[in-house]
């Protein structure tokens, strides 16, 4: 897997979002159509071709104070419009670790 931070060529194979980590606390956020960031994937702006992806990423990169390390990540959009992460990495970023944390063991 290419490090998302080194993502240079923008090619997308399906619906995608721009995701990053919020600067002040580091939590996972998604770029919204309203040109802001949200921790809720359902509020993410969906892009469906390279030009759209490039534009959304450029806008996200420009907001350096709001979030860091933006990159394009695949998603799946269900028939009901529900957005789900497109791979394991993004699923873990969205839903958290797949293991019990020690305090919970």
């Amino acid at each position: 897997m290419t490090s998302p931070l080194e993502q240079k060529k923008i090619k997308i194979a399906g619906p995608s979002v721009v995701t990053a980590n919020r600067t002040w606390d580091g939590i996972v956020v998604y770029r919204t159509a309203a040109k802001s960031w949200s921790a809720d994937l359902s509020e993410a702006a969906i892009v469906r071709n390279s030009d759209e992806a490039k534009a959304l990423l450029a806008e996200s990169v420009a907001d350096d104070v709001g979030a860091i390390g933006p990159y394009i990540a695949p998603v799946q959009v269900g028939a009901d419009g529900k957005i789900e992460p497109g791979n394991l990495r993004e699923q873990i970023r969205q839903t958290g670790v797949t293991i019990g944390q020690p305090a919970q063991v």
Partner: protein
Amino acid sequence: MYAYDEIDRTLVNERVSEFRDQVKRRLSGELTEDEFKILRLQNGVYLQLHAYMFRVAIPYGTLASNQLRALAHVARKYDRGYGHFTTRQNIQFNWIKLAELPDALADLAEVGIHAMQTSGNNMRNVTSDQWAGVAPGEIEDPRIWSELIRQHTTLHPEFSFLPRKFKIAITASDHDRAAIKIHDIGLKLIKNEKGETGFEVLVGGGLGRTPFIGKTIKHFVHGRDILSYIEAILRVYNQYGRRDNIYKARIKILVHELGIEKFSREVEDEWQHIRNSSLQIDDEVIEDIRSRFTYPNYEKLPHMPDELRQAAADADFEAWRKNSVSPHKVQGYSIVTISLKPIGAPPGDATAEQMDALADLADKYSFGEIRVGHEQNLVLPHVAKRDLPALWKALDKLGLATPNVNLITDIIACPGLDYCSLANARSIPIAQELTRRFANHELANLIGRLHINISGCINACGHHHVGHIGILGVEKNGEEVYQITIGGRADEGAALGNLIGPGVKFDEVADVIEDVVEAYLALRERPEELFIDTVKRLGVEPFKERVYATR
């Protein structure tokens, strides 16, 4: 314990103030992320999948009880109530907020802890034997020399922008618990024929994408010359090390490409220029550092106290004692390894409550001192044998008396894809499943010493190349796939493992490891023949046949 002086305290406090200002400027937008990144990395702050990760230095793996309490405090106040001890004797917190980091650093600074040079392309935390100063047969306490190097290299301007990160490990025992052969520089403390203290110096070891076992560059460097010799190595590296390709920037690549003979000639030439300079260490300097290490006022105690004799009737206590208690250089005392590998739990993690309780136990039973080992376990280095039964009961209540040190469930694992932005595959769930498969203590004892090391990517933070069984997670067509090696080891006989065959899927890993272990049990000549020795005797093929015959 080492007592920091006013210079150290000033340095640490000034660093906190400096970083507080940098964070403030970053959050206001005055600094861009590109400008800030190198600054945060120099203070141990990474960005991981879910949050910032904060790596705190534990120099040569030695902690005082009040420092462990401070780490517990950080876990509780600024994180999610736990920390992760790493293979380089540091601790990481996974959920830190950037805005709160200066406060966390300030709280740690109160007890002399910092995060300087725990990341970035500089000299990292100098690691050492977790039994330093108490191991029988040790030449002398290697932490004295670790501290010397720490002082010399902390914020050293010439070594703050190296081609890549640089790691040094030191041991003073024949049995290498510090894994010196997989470090950029490995130092083995020895005596020459005149009885003078010095070092065998190894260079160019390392794991990652291109693993190498370190090579001896000089068989004896006198202690007074060790700083100048290390500096000569670093200067050659700084001059010739590649900066154009991150994957070829470590010193191991330079040593490999130049060859050890040419590399050592370059070092020797450089050394002659600086050997008789201010880098030559006066005996007084070493004595000053030595004097700042305090050692317990040991009592004269019997070899076999009544408390220990009586407790021997308890099978559970005996299982723990035989597994986790080791001989101490002082009669009547023991070294106790505390497994941070409970069955089913993430390797190396400890909760704030456990850290606080361990600090109390260290005060009560170990002169207030705790060590961290590269195997991601903790050590109480000075426990009176008479106290072992009481200590065991207390540890058991904390869930910290699993008698699996050096056994198959004592797994080294990196954070993997559950936390790490570089990872391709998960490590911790694999470790958890393996500990459940081999949870039976009798089975684990029957198998004997066997180290499983797991990494979630080729960067090898889980030291998979040198695991007796190594497991490397990769990503293939969107799926987690695991490559399995056998025959690696990280001790004085360090070796890289060999692949046993094609990678296997996440759900199959534990089955494959069970097959490897079953093959070993069938193939070993006698119960005392360790897994690693059977592999050395027979090679990979018999294991490969067993594992892949039905797959």
